């Protein structure tokens, strides 16, 4: 039992007390804003970076490895032209993927964040 004359001595256990700090190793579950930010940064931005990287890689290859790009695949279609077509196709695929991902994941999160904020009017 702690003496009332030793005000700086802390109680052995906070468990159950309303002032208990979260135990180490178990951080707060992420808020919806944090989840939304994490989704955007860990999924959307890397995909965008990959698209840019693929484009720059093609630009470099065309200038450095011209012989490789001239390899013929079908008829008169060579690797360089096929890669150009592929970039158009990946762009459309990435756009489709993002639209679906945003509709199923980002929009509901954003909606619940907004619902939590609106009464307090913090957005105005």
């Amino acid at each position, binding site marked *: 039992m702690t003496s009332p004359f030793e005000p700086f001595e802390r109680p052995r256990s906070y468990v159950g007390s309303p002032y208990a700090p979260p135990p180490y190793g178990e951080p707060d579950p992420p808020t919806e*804003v944090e989840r*939304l*930010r994490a989704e*955007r940064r860990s999924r*959307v*931005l890397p*995909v*965008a970076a990959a*698209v*840019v990287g693929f*484009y*720059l890689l*093609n*630009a*470099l290859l*065309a*200038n*450095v490895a*011209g*012989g490789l*790009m*001239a390899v*013929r695949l*079908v*008829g*008169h*279609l*060579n690797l*360089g*032209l096929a890669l*150009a077509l592929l*970039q*158009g196709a*990946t*762009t*459309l695929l*990435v*756009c489709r993927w*993002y*639209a679906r991902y*945003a509709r199923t994941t980002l*929009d509901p999160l*954003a*909606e619940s*964040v*907004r619902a939590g*904020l*609106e009464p307090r009017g*913090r*957005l*105005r």
Partner: protein
Amino acid sequence: MSASQLSAQIAHNGTTLIVFAVFVVCVILIALWGAADSDTPRRFFVSGRELPSARNGIALFGDFISAATLLGTPGLIALAGFDGIPYLVGPVVVWAVILLVIAEPFHNTGSYTVGDALARRLRPRPVHLAMGLATLVISLFYLTAQLVGAGALAAPLLGISGEAAQNYLMVFLGVLMIIYVAISGMHGATLVQLLKAAVLLAASIFLAALVLAKFNWNPSDLLGTAARRSGVGEDFLAPGARAQGTGTEALDRVSLQLGALIGAAGLPHILMRMSVVRSARAARRSVQWTAVLTCVFCATAGILGFGAAAVLGPETIVAGSPSGNTATLLLAHSLGGSWMLTVMACVAFATILAVVAGIALAAATSVAHDLYGAVLKRGRATEEKELMVARWAVVLIGCAAVGLSLLAERLNVSFAAGLAFCVAASAILPALLYGLYWRGFTTTGALWSIYGGLVSSVVLAVLSPAVSGGPTALFPDMDFNLFPLQYPTIVSAPLGFFLGWLGSVLGRDRPDQATYSALELRTLANAEETSA
């Protein structure tokens, strides 16, 4: 067939002028129709933020595809084969980047201009001033490039060739642009861009179908014939058919492609269109529309380029214009007769008109809203005054661009357009990305990045071989060619990013956590959906 023969043939036709006149009257009627809907700055600048997403997406496509892509790129492909292909890939891929990284956050900041988006978290006056100046520089370069490019249409449209005819057409185009942007703002620009998008897609798909039909709908046949007629054989379809492969030139091409990709994501008139719709979801749908349309158009442009090489052969194309800028028109004439040529020339004119409208509107918005409203009047300008300044800014910017294009007729069109993209990639994009995504960004960082990117790209371009020190340069008699690359993006864009970071770290001002958190919440939670 040379350009003068071409024009002579059309002068006989006579219907050209009538079709062209009908077209011009339509454009002016559109402007008057849109005038009533442009009575407040919000409606003049961004159509009241309530344009439907599909219409905005199609208009965005009309805003983006310039005469360089319609006339220049097929010409380049017809002459250089594979080396012209990257000019078609960049404009497609950029829409994935805009969709994923920029469209929704920028819409959610609720801005008219890029300066607005940054001013939500940084000190407003300096960033408005810096972004306003960067926007003006980009717009003037791009407008000048488009107007000079329009000169090439003088022969097929007016039936007369020569310098005087080109000047007439440039002045006429500039005046037309001033009239309808000043009268009807974003509303008129949207209508003209919709019209342009429709006629551009219809005409180019029709022409591409004619090309493919000629080769039994077999693309491989088309490529084979193009390669055979090029004189270099199968090398025509691989990199380096015409260009010398020195290290500097390779670096220059990579630099140009980098600029074409990331510069397009920083162009003010493209960004402005993100704000024209009601919600972030609508902005997303707009960009999806644009991505699909651009993809279709660029595939068509590739067919037109190889088609010109296969149907006409390089001698005819070079005789029409050494840079290949008339290849699409010659192809139209060869496949569809003079009627098709007239249609394509009008489409090209509409293309340029729609693009210059978008740029002039973005520049005028920046002058009225950033420079006048935020810097001069410190945000206390009345709506009527801001609108009046915007209308006069359209007139001034239009006159300046026409004057510049008359002076700079020797200007290489793709160089001026490339420079506009370069400034956008170096001065606007770094600050915009940091502003939207980096908590530690400060006003000092923004100013270093914007001014650093702006000054470095312009200075390096002035010192480049495109401006002096060679027979094809803008000033062939002078020589201050100190920088080896024509397109400085590969140096200036990383510099813009680096300076933005350095200024934020070294500057005395600390990042404002509270305003960033508010901005982040706004961009993440699609806040505009509720407050619009």
